């Protein structure tokens, strides 16, 4: 018999339908993967299951009994715990206080029994072979990966029958991610149901028994994991075929040099970077992580200091801070790595996010022209196909992919024609990824010059015209044409004597 049965589940936020008639069923003792693009309704679904949000319509049965939790406590009382992607941890409490928060063992005086709490913590961490954590450490001193692990311990502390893991591996280093995958199997073997959400197909493949695919708030398909191909899954996730993921690569580069970098060096990791980026070109930057890619982008944008020469459209420039980097048609614009922290004001509207940094462009005689602003915003929203109810919708309520499009819009409105894209598809769903690649090619065709870094190597291979491979802070090789391949990039990144 199924442990959880969901029928006709619906949820709206204002005019936006997050879930419509979704179904789901899963058994005890299985790892059940939940797949879908960003905005497909996965998050809403698990928020409902974990009691953080209440559903509008439909029914959920747990053990055949009606389930409609009023709050996370009620969900826990029925044996359901969630490991949230945004984490539910308290920065000013210690690791163990966080793990047992609101379920602390108590003394006769009703105070927390610290000795007992320590004993239970060590027992829990030991039972599941947790990575070493110090129970007395304050949470705000921990790295993101460590916090993620504490969140997992907190979920397990409730000894749940149903554990929801929402992208729990995404912030973990490889070894810890591998640990979590094994842990997941172990939990299922103990007879628990693990609902597993991940964007990494290989992980899903490695541990899931079955998988349910969501799209646009509805359930599209349920599969036995070993009876379906990756291609089928992706096709069902995005509702069309994947062959359009990478756009056709038509060479649009001219002979004009948009950005020339000579001998760029810095205290941190850059030692003599040389390259030239041409008008109409998409130039990839690859290599193993931590060989200066990030520092290169920061130095070009003026966010960190570096020596050497930078020429924009033939003119030497010095970029001391991001403000100087931005200005005008000869400028540089950056899509930053951490879009929530650096690129986007989540509590501001799409319109404000797009136009804040370019307010001069629609100011007439010192007054703001709302008409001009509206026209520019509409042009961008249409051009980028940003899916927002109205331009006044708050950026924080958009899906990850649409947030990224807003950042692109913001960047394009600066009129800069040299674009620095640092991992622009990170955390973006497959469908939007395709749109972003197409957009990059379109921009290149219009004469933009694009420097593009991705932590996902196939993206470099399929989108860039040329790829710079960085090693030890300089360009170790420049790959062109047929030589651009994952193997080629890796070889240049790892082998000292590969000729540039």
């Amino acid at each position, binding site marked *: 018999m199924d442990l959880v049965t969901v029928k006709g589940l619906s949820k709206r936020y204002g005019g936006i339908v997050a879930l419509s008639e979704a179904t789901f069923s899963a*058994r005890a*003792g*299985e790892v059940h993967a939940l797949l879908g693009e960003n905005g497909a309704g996965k998050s809403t679904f698990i928020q409902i299951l974990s*009691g*953080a949000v209440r559903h509008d319509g439909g029914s959920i049965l747990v053990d055949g009994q009606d389930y409609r939790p009023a*709050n*996370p*406590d009620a969900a*826990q009382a029925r044996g359901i715990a969630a490991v*949230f992607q*945004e*984490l*539910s*941890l*308290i*920065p*000013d*409490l210690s690791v163990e*206080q966080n793990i047992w*928060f*609101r379920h*602390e063992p*108590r003394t006769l*005086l*009703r*105070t*927390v029994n610290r000795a007992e709490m320590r004993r239970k913590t060590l027992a829990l961490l030991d039972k*599941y*072979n*947790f*990575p*070493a*954590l*110090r129970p007395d*450490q*304050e949470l*705000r*001193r*921990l*790295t993101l*990966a*460590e916090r993620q*692990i504490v969140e997992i311990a907190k979920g397990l502390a409730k000894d749940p029958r149903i554990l929801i893991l929402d992208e729990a591996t995404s912030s973990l280093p490889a*070894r*810890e991610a*591998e*640990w*979590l995958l*094994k*842990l997941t*199997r*172990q939990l*299922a*073997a103990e007879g628990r149901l693990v609902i597993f959400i991940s964007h990494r197909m290989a992980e899903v493949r490695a541990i899931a*028994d079955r998988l349910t695919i969501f799209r646009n708030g509805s359930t599209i398909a349920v599969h036995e994991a070993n009876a379906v191909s990756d291609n089928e899954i992706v096709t069902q996730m995005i509702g069309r075929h994947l062959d359009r993921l990478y756009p056709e690569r038509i060479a649009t580069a001219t002979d004009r040099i948009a950005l020339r970098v000579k001998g760029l060096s810095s205290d941190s990791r850059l030692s003599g970077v040389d390259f030239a980026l041409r008008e109409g070109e998409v130039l990839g930057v690859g290599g193993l992580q931590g060989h200066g890619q990030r520092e290169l982008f920061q130095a070009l944008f003026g966010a960190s200091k570096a020596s050497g020469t930078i020429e924009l459209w033939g003119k030497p420039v010095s970029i001391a801070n991001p403000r100087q980097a931005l200005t005008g048609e000869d400028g540089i614009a950056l899509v930053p790595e951490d879009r929530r922290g650096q690129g986007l004001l989540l509590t501001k509207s799409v319109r404000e996010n797009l136009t804040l940094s370019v307010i001069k462009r629609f100011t007439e005689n010192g007054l703001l022209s709302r008409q001009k602003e509206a026209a520019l915003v509409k042009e961008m929203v249409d051009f980028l196909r940003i899916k927002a109810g109205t331009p006044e919708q708050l950026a924080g309520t958009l899906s990850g992919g649409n947030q990224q499009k807003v950042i692109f819009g913001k960047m394009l409105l600066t009129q800069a024609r040299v674009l620095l894209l640092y991992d622009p598809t990170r955390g973006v769903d497959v469908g939007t990824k395709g749109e972003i690649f197409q957009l990059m090619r379109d921009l290149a065709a219009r004469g933009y010059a694009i420097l593009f870094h991705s932590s996902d190597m196939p993206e470099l291979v399929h989108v860039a015209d040329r790829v710079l491979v960085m090693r030890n802070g300089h360009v170790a090789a420049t790959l062109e044409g047929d030589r651009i391949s994952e193997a080629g990039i890796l070889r240049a990144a790892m082998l000292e004597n590969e000729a540039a």
Partner: protein
Amino acid sequence: MAIAEQPVEMAQRPAEMKSAKPGIDWRGRLLDRAPFLVACLMLALIVAIYGSLQSGVFSLDELNLDTAAALTLMLAATGQTIVLVRGGIDLSIGGMISLGTVIAATRFTDDPSTTALWALAVLALGFLIGALNGLLISLLKLQPFLVTLATWSILNGVAMIILPTDGGSVPAWWVGFGYAQLFGLTSPVWMLLALLLFWWWFRATRVGITIQATGSNEKSAFLSGVSIARVNLITYGLSGLFAAGAALFLTTQTGAGSPTIGKDYILPSVAAAVIGGVSLFGGRGHLAGTLIGAFVLTLIGNLVFVLHVSSYWQPVASGVILLLSVLASSVAEKAARGRVQ
């Protein structure tokens, strides 16, 4: 099910992570406590100067006197500390203290049972009005600053209606409570110790931890199952209760009621907490620091007196000390963040 047939590989423990290095992080602990230590240092300095200018400073009598002078502020600041740790602020304690003193000064009689009943009524009223603050903040989703500013004004008005000018009186035996002695220590000193004991207990209870957690990160607390409305109700209720307690104690010192006296405790209660290292952003702080802060603010008055300078220098000195404290915490905060990035 096919699952059970697969051999399950036990999850292996991965290598040690970055923050898990064994040993005690002394520097981190020191930085965390820097604002509190600075407050202690300031108090020691003030006491030292005071002691060098005045004889008999290091005596039980002096301790009894200074504690009596500081205790009203300490009681008010205890409630304020709980609210600040929750990440809020309570301005209404000014109104509550005024209202408490005028009720006492107009209703207390020589009959102990009537007086006791009214004293309990004042405490209950304090809790209820505070709880109402909490309720309004949750229901209307308004800033605590605005809600408690409004209730302050209302309570102030009500106090004025009951007793338009300073006056009234409380029974002599009630005033005697403020000077009762046990083992050479007067009741204010015992109350101070009781406050510390209360805090030691309260901060280790689930309610105390939940209030701190909600101040530290409200969203996370909610996701962990905390009812934010309930936390607000208890937090502001306690603040009102302590403000009412402050009012009752104040009448043992003044022997009368005043419809305006409460405003003198609003900002000093926040200042005492901040000097003692309580964060205005919630989640961090201890009552011990607040009580030290209250002592610092009170003794500044004594110091100005024995230095024979104009009493207008007292607020100037208080302000400078407040600035120094805030500076100390922000420097410590930055140093701590620099280490964690």
